[in-house]
């Protein structure tokens, strides 16, 4: 089995993995970081979004071995212990989550979106969320939270 080594939330992580192991499986099963979720099997729902070298990636779309040497950031590492990232704060403040299952992927997507597009408007946020499905909120408060966080981070 191939050995894969990467940095996850600032800490080195390596393991012997089956070649077919997906990055999301490595994160959830190998490292026990269960904040990253799996909501579909066709790379549509975005519950598994993490950052790979600073970019939002659906971690079900790449093999663990493809992340060799990469810097991975998951929801658990987004803010130092005891603190919250402005996007996390905005999701709570604006009730941008209900069951919480899509939330980690939404937040990781939003952080990347705000980094790439500092001048977000509602239409852009909605277009950018095309790859993240939420069944609870109707997106209304997710959009509100992302716009508020984007203002806050300006």
């Amino acid at each position, binding site marked *: 089995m191939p050995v894969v080594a990467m940095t996850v939330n600032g800490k080195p992580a390596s393991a012997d993995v*089956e070649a*077919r192991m997906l990055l999301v499986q490595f994160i*959830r*099963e190998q490292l*026990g*970081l*269960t*904040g*990253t*979720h*799996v*909501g*579909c*099997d*066709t790379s*549509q*729902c975005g*519950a598994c979004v993490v950052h790979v070298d600073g970019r939002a990636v659906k971690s079900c779309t790449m093999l663990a071995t493809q992340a060799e040497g990469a810097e991975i950031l*998951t*929801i*658990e590492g*987004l*803010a130092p212990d005891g603190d*919250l990232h402005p996007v*996390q704060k905005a*999701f*709570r*403040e604006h*009730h941008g*989550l*209900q*069951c*919480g*299952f*899509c*939330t*980690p992927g939404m*937040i990781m997507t939003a952080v990347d979106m705000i980094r790439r597009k500092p001048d977000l408007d*509602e*239409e852009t*946020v*909605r*277009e950018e*969320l*095309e790859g*993240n*499905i*939420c*069944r*609870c*909120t*109707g*997106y*209304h*408060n*997710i*959009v*509100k939270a992302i716009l508020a966080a984007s203002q806050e981070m300006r």
Partner: protein
Amino acid sequence: MSDKASGEGIGQPVRRKEDFRFITGNGHYTDDITRPRQTWAYFLRSPHAHARIRAIDTSQAEQAPGVVAIFTGKHVAADKLGGLICGWTVSSKDGTPMKVGPHPILALDTVRYVGDHVAMVVAETLADARAASELIDVDYEPLPATISLDTCQNGNAEQVHPEAPRNTCFEWELGNKPETEAAFAKASRIVKLDLKNNRLIPNAMEPRAALGEYDKGSGIYTLHTTSQNPHVARLVLSAFVGVAPEHKLRVIAPDVGGGFGSKIFIYAEETACVWAAAKVGRPIKWTGDRSEAFLSDAHGRDHLSHAELALDGNGKFLALRVKTIANLGAYLSTFSASVPTYLYGTLLSGQYDIPAIYVEVDGVYTHTAPVDAYRGAGRPEATYLVERMVETAARETGIDPAEIRRRNYIRTFPHQTPVIMNYDAGDYEASLDAAMKAIDYAGFPARKSEAARRGKLRGIGMSSYIEACGLAPSAAVGSLGAGVGLWESAEVRVNPTGNVEVLTGSHSHGQGHETTFAQLVASRLGIPMEQVEIVHGDTDKVQFGMGTYGSRSGAVGMSAIVKALDKVEAKAKKIAAHLMEAAVEDIVFENGTFTVQGTDKSLPWAQLALSAYTAHGFPSADIEPGLKEGAFYDPTNFTFPAGCHICEVEIDPDTGITRIEKFVAVDDFGTIVNPMIVEGQVHGGIAQGIGQALLEHGIYDAESGQLVTGSYMDYCMPRADDLPSFTLGFTKTVCPSNPLGMKGCGEAGAIASPPAIVNAITDALGIRDIEMPATPARVWSAIQAATPRAAAE
């Protein structure tokens, strides 16, 4: 009350207690739990909609790497396990009970839908289990399948169950036929419409999952599962399936990632996992993937109806008659028989005074996944029918849609409808007026003209909905065929240090109970919310509960908490009276302090709590130590949330794409504990309603019975860019039948919105009807069909 306490009180938009764990990735969903020596299950499913199983050969698969065990229907039968049940019995109009085909956990000799469970492979890893399943040799004899609702009752249609001739499970009726016929005979106008209510696939974002364990030393089984009602799951698994006696089975529903009805039901997978855990002597985990969810989660809706509305010369409704064929799928699911009957027919009066109603519903089997409750459950189907009929009546009579509703609204309460329900309170015109104002109804013609100048078609549509929630008075549902009572339980445990645990039989899977329930308790006891912990979802902690569905947790679950709090307060006052040497009638409890009326004697909550447990000097005959009280609350009536949703759409005639320009929802939910959470519930409901109206459709191939919308690439889930932001408003009539005056808010959006959207689209296009989902293709075709050829050229 302190500032802090009033900021957390009833009616305040308190931020959610549960959010911290979800936004930091610290939730605990079933699939997040891993046990030492855990194995994985994978279910081999039928690729055929209907086939006889001649033989199953597992010998090769058993030799595959990592395989621990393989179970088929024979193993289940050998253990004499019962099948899955339907907990609601509906009778046909001739008095005979519904005709039920057996629902085995793993198929015995026949498979009845694509995705039906054939074998369970247990292996060291999920990959091993999945790979081994491909080595199982099932000798199928494929048979014709019955898929279409139009033809399933024909004499030559393939039978799903021999027990149910013509694939008919029941031929149910409700209302008064002779009165209805008489009213139609004297009507000056009869409006007729054929309506389809499209099949939906629930798609909670967390797929169903289960982790079954067996402790040999104690003989106790533990099942973690994605359930909206773990106690009901335990009851069914013990009393009907016979996995284990109730006291030897613990069911835990930890964080659950959405349900929308689909996680009420007891399915084959969790049943097999917990049963087989004892067989293999190791924990067994199953986590469904999305494809399995599409195939095997219970679907929703799927009705075919013909409706007729009789009116007098003034646009007053005289009578409604309805004939509906409701798809039940291949097997009856846990509550499926109740959905197209008592949750549907009973709401056909809508918000209107309709003197006579008669409805017939045929519940039919097809070779498709079971159909059961999905957000709204029966009430969206009723509302769609009523509001499409009312809109059509308005157009045919030339009366404005708002005006025809006003002429027919129920205005005095209580109001007994011809279809069981007794509406207790409401003000339907208030929500209509507020919604019309919010959308600037009067300005619509100008907006329509402006759109027309841009070559766009603009339409407006409304929906005045009502639903019956707060399920439900146990005696009422018992008389209608329910196998359970629909009360709720609560227990308030005051700790010696004054903080409080509240155990509830309700289950939160997104609704925010940890916040709203804590708001209630904190404001009642005058303590900060962080001193209140809401405990739910574990049969070892909570004695019993009926769970969360039917918008019942506020009206029923919180009422049980109120009842338990009443008892806590009564006992606490008794203790306070003893400690302060006063008469119990003189004790006042306010803002967390006990005082003796007319004196300066007082005792803070925390001190009383401690005293309750030190119990020093209690007169033992009068006061027991401790402070813990429980209550069961059985509602006295359903609750009746109601309101008006108005939708304005703009359609591009070149592409058929419908854009929702504005969506206004004005709802009367009675007392609102946390408006932020309630608004969130409405947003989510509307999104699912827009999904039904514009995007979503569960489609089976009519010949092969294959589910052709079996993934997110084929089944159109609403995405952020399909939806607008919503404009919400509230009106309020207090529900008289529960202590807080609450009505329930979880399903309103999904119930009210589809007819508002379809009314808007048909208004824009100037057509009588369009089938849901009104996809661009359907809208474009409707425009082509309605456009005279000359104009097109």
